[in-house]
């Protein structure tokens, strides 16, 4: 059953650390100087507050993404595209066996408002949940202001292609996107575009690598080109993916620069299945029945390639599609 009432957005009075408590359905969330405390009818859980804020920041920014967003091995969300499950222990074999798992379904708007309210109250002025650890201050300590600019960034979703007339602009110094410290050696040259009169809107080319070198966020796929339901969603990665992504469809990775290692586990139990090391030019699929977490020792460019066809989750869930994209 979907809980469709809008959430009580939080306690009026802050706790002794200066932070408000929040509830949604039978879940409650509180934070102290270091940890987030999650409670549900038959269990409790603690997460480090920096990891929790990084995770819900992605969950909100991505619109709960494709499939499952595990904040860690216990807490997370499942996107049903209109409603969202908030769960504890659902994809953890031991929690399920112990009967400690719990899940509750909410309208997407309700859980979005909850997470946005938590981000607004719990993100201190010194902390940017989208930034790499080397580029942000501390998330810890008593309440210390807020950082609205960091948690409300515009998410790029090109309708056709970045740089095309009327579409998402490319990044420049002038519009607030300097070259990242780890990509100062990335060539910034523009393609030579020669359009005949009348075809200026059709002859379009951009420097995608320069565009990525100017990203001010990490682990945040954004759409740069659209071929029907085929979406190129490149992103820049540094340190550790703040969530463990459980797939509801196949997705593909193309490593554009540097290196990422992926830990791959069974989506439903967490049993380890493989480690995938990707270097520049490597291409790999993430099957529809796994979950994965990436580790990027240096800031790298990753092309995430998605199929946004809305019927896919049901087809995979019903076993009508094999979890691997190619049989050979």
């Amino acid at each position, binding site marked *: 059953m979907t809980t469709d009432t809008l959430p009580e957005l939080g306690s009026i009075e802050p706790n002794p650390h200066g932070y408000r408590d929040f509830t949604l359905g039978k879940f409650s969330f509180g934070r102290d100087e270091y940890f987030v405390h999650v409670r549900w009818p038959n269990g409790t859980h603690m997460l480090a507050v920096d990891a929790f804020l990084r995770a819900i920041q992605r969950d909100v920014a991505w619109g709960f993404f494709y499939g499952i967003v595990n904040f860690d091995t216990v807490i997370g969300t499942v996107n049903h595209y209109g409603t969202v499950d908030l769960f504890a222990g659902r994809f953890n074999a031991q929690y399920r066996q112990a009967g400690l798992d719990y899940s509750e379904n909410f309208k997407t708007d309700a859980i979005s408002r909850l997470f946005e309210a938590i981000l607004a109250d719990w993100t201190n002025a010194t902390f940017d949940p989208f930034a790499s650890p080397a580029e942000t201050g501390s998330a810890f300590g008593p309440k210390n202001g807020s950082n609205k600019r960091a948690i409300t960034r515009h998410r790029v979703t090109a309708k*056709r*292609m970045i740089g*095309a007339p009327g579409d998402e602009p490319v990044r420049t110094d002038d519009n607030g996107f300097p070259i990242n*410290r*780890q*990509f100062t*050696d*990335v*060539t910034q*040259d523009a*393609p*030579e*575009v*020669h359009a*005949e009169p009348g*075809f200026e809107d*059709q*002859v*379009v*080319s*951009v*420097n*995608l*690598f320069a565009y990525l070198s100017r990203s001010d966020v990490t682990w945040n796929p954004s759409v740069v*080109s*659209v*071929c*029907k*339901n*085929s979406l190129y969603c490149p992103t820049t990665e540094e340190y550790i993916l703040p969530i463990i992504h459980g797939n509801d469809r196949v*997705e*593909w990775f*193309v*490593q554009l*620069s*540097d*290196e990422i290692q992926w830990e*791959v586990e069974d989506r439903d139990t967490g*049993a*380890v*299945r*493989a480690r*995938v*090391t990707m*270097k*520049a*030019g*490597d*291409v*790999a*699929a993430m*099957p529809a029945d796994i979950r994965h977490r990436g580790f990027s020792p240096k*800031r790298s460019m990753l092309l995430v*390639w998605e*199929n946004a066809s809305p019927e896919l989750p049901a087809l995979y869930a019903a076993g009508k599609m094999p*979890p*691997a*994209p*190619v049989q*050979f």
Partner: protein
Amino acid sequence: MAPNRTRFGSLAHFEKGGVEVIKDDARNYVFSNLFEVASKARPYEKVAVGKNIEYVIEAIRAEGTSGWRVACQDEFALVMDGEVEVRLLKPDDGSLVPAGGKGSIPLSGSPPGRKMGHVRARRGHMTLLPAGAAYQFHAGSPSVILLQTLAGRDTVERWAEICQTAPRPKPNSKEVTR
């Protein structure tokens, strides 16, 4: 070595990672390297390195001048190595583009039409190939394109040749310098 040097791949030099299986089949990850694929491909052979139902990404070795092609949906050409000239033309004959077709189709010779323009693209440059526009590639030296498109009649699928099938990466596939 500068600690933050960004490493891209190329036909001349690429390193491969791989799949280390713990409890799985390496084939589930369809793991390949697009530079390795392009290094073994014929010029303008459209070799799929990724497939998601009807959609593909193709590794294309650009060398010399390609034939003209056209598609009924937008495609996107990302140059991964070298330099490629993309020539665009609006065909006079609109029926060259079959409605509802998938992927691109080859055109015989140079189709009559209006020149739309051209783009000279180097590594990292992504170019729109608009729906209904004929396009031709030219590369003075071997280059690599990654093409976002739908699987079509000229898409080449040879997964068993290009993908890792063993539980561990081949030791000699760690680094290739040409």
